[in-house]
């Protein structure tokens, strides 16, 4: 995999059509997590999968469009588009550099992506909500740390961390599992760097 192909902005039609599917997967992942009453969001499987299949540009676009669309049902989502873009970018880079190629590596990658999401989201939380995430457990921790340390930033960072890291870890593992189960001709579809060979 050459660097050039990873960053190609000329997306194939197949790669573009992958983006709405990614947003749909995010949506039903979140819905299914609610349905099964799981304690995590699991709403970025599509973005992660799109980044694995199509690279960082497709991943970032899927993340951005995901939050723009969510903004039509919940205007606050717009703000967090930046986090989704970061997730798509980082997964795409890690994957295409070969850092998500086994379960062990996927765990490390999941932790990294959780940290990235936390670091990007924390300033947004502070600017928008005064530091909270809206997640009950995280916000309880936020209140506790705020009461004991006098640091909004530390409280907010930890609030986001306890929610985001387990969520993103699981999301990356689920996505990697799904990726490994995909037929090869489906994976092949989104590769943009293939050349036509000649039989003449």
């Amino acid at each position, binding site marked *: 995999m050459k660097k050039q192909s990873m960053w190609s902005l000329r997306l*194939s039609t197949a790669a573009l059509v992958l983006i709405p*599917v990614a947003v749909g997967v995010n949506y039903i992942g979140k819905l299914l997590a609610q349905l099964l009453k799981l304690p995590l969001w699991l709403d970025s499987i599509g973005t992660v999968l799109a980044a694995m299949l199509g690279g960082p540009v497709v991943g970032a676009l899927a993340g951005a469009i995901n939050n723009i669309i969510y903004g039509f049902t919940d205007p606050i989502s717009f703000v967090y588009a930046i986090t989704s873009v970061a997730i798509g970018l980082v997964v795409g880079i890690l994957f295409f550099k070969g850092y998500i190629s086994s379960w062990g590596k996927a765990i490390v990658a999941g932790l990294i992506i959780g940290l990235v999401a936390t670091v990007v989201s924390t300033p947004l939380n502070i600017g928008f909500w005064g530091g909270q995430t809206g997640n009950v457990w995280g916000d309880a921790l936020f209140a506790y740390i705020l009461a004991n340390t006098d640091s909004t930033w530390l409280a907010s960072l930890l609030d986001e961390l306890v929610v985001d890291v387990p969520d993103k870890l699981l999301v990356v593992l689920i996505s990697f599992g799904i990726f490994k189960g995909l037929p090869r001709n489906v994976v092949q579809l989104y590769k943009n760097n293939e050349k036509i060979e000649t039989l003449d």
Partner: protein
Amino acid sequence: MKSISLYVDKESFIHDFDPITKLLYILFALFLPLILLSFTVSFISVGVSIVLLMAAGVIRKTIPVFSFVFLVLITVVIIQGLFRPENETILFQIGPLAMYKEGLLYALTITLRVMNIVSAFLILVLTTKPSDLVETLVRKGMSPRIGYVIVSVFQIIPEMMASMSTITDAQRARGMETEGKLSVRMKAFLPLLGPVILGALINTKERALALEVRGFNSHVPKTYLYEEKTHALSKWVQAILLLLLVGAGVWRIFG
């Protein structure tokens, strides 16, 4: 087919305005209070948005969104009122817990800011068809390919939800447990999600083929089935909003 957007199909003078004017209004509502840094301006801005939402006949549709926002805001008020590091002046005491003036004022700022952004956005979201918004943006120079991607999400999600409910029913009929202990529910997640994703990905090939043969990557300038929607007053409203913003900026710097 069930729609995922909040758009309310109605006739009102707010609906008649073009998406660009509504986008500009969001910027206006966002920046005016930031420039003037005044509670009064924020209050007025939220008030104006709510009046516009009522005029559009969509105020009832805002309730679910606002209730979610309020739920979070209540915790903001409590946590900031009790624990904000800058807290000094006790306002009142409930048992052992003291509510502070600084924290509550800060929580009020956040509440107004959130209310302001959400209500301005809701005007756009509740009174504009997503496809109209995208078409307007494409006319203004956004890539039609990206425009396609955004609009198609609104069709693909209901489609995928339908296939998920088919699969969920089938798996339950085969005896899969979807309730009970956390580990049981976790185990159900993948077998329910996997087939939907695989099916959707396989379909992308044929959809991409179909788009290709319909000129999706054509370099010819695009034309449109519908004429561009403009309102007689659009230009005036846009000009007034911009003037007010610039005026506020000037007043802030020199006033």
